[in-house]
């Protein structure tokens, strides 16, 4: 048989405190609260996961350009950047695949694993 949960009652008017077992009504209310909290937690979990997914999607969108074929690169792209992209194309492809796989690695969206580390070059600031 499980132990009866306790509560601390602080009476400010009297300046006293007392540890007392929860009443049957209070235990019933607690069970109801736990059921309600479970529903809320599911919603919050979905919200946290959605935030991670949105971040992942932004990173993918911001690195799209790195996998375009050279004829489709922006005309004003500096040659040094073009060279860096050519040299790291495989690394960026792997990074983007890791981003796509990232959400499946999240067990607890409130304590998520770190995002994949992007290749060092060309320097891309992801926001």
């Amino acid at each position, binding site marked *: 048989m499980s132990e009866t949960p306790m509560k*601390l009652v602080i009476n400010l008017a009297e300046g006293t405190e007392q*540890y007392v077992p929860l009443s049957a009504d*209070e235990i019933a209310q607690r069970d109801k609260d*736990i059921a309600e*909290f479970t529903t*809320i937690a599911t919603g919050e979990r979905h919200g946290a996961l959605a935030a991670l997914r949105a971040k992942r999607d932004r990173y993918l969108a911001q690195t799209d350009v790195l996998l375009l074929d050279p004829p489709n690169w922006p005309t004003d792209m500096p040659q040094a950047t073009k060279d860096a992209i050519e040299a790291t194309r495989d690394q960026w492809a792997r990074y983007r695949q890791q981003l796509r796989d990232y959400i499946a690695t999240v067990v607890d969206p409130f304590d998520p694993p770190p995002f994949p580390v992007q290749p060092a070059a060309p320097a891309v600031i992801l926001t």
Partner: protein
Amino acid sequence: MTGSWPTGWAPGDVLTAAQLAKMMGAIYDTTLSGAVATIDVTGLLGSYAHLFIELDGRGDTAATNTGLNTRLNGDTGSNYDTQTLSGSAATATAQESLAQVTAGIGGIPASTAPANVFSGSLLWIPNYAKTDRQKMIYALGGFKVSTASGALTALIRACAWRSTSAVTQITFLPTAGNFVAGSRVTIYALGA
């Protein structure tokens, strides 16, 4: 070094009873000697202007953390609305929770968080005793569940109670399990 207080106070001045009544002070402070499922603050007099409550706690549920909730005057109806802004590592999240049965005021570390880690929230409830307005609770807090990146969460919450009743009772309850021994509640009041 010499000088005077910007407000005109000088060394040796004595506060009057009327001035003291306007100041903020701790009206209760306790540290749990055993685990409890809820903490009930009762007998709340209406003689202060605003309340500030600090809850520094930890839960015993088998998780890294659990939610920290409050209920006013024992109202178990769906009368609480909460807006959350939270951040961990570089991720910021906003969340709206309407018509809930408690006000979600924050989170606390729980049994699988590192040992000796306590945290919680600082709440303020302005005009808690007035009956001409619905009550708000503003909460500032955070909790840590490990030393890894993203494991320290900062929380700002605004909670609304859909009632104009004077607040006479405040109940704290974790989302799951109990508050452990060593959790501490300190209640401050600002004079009327």
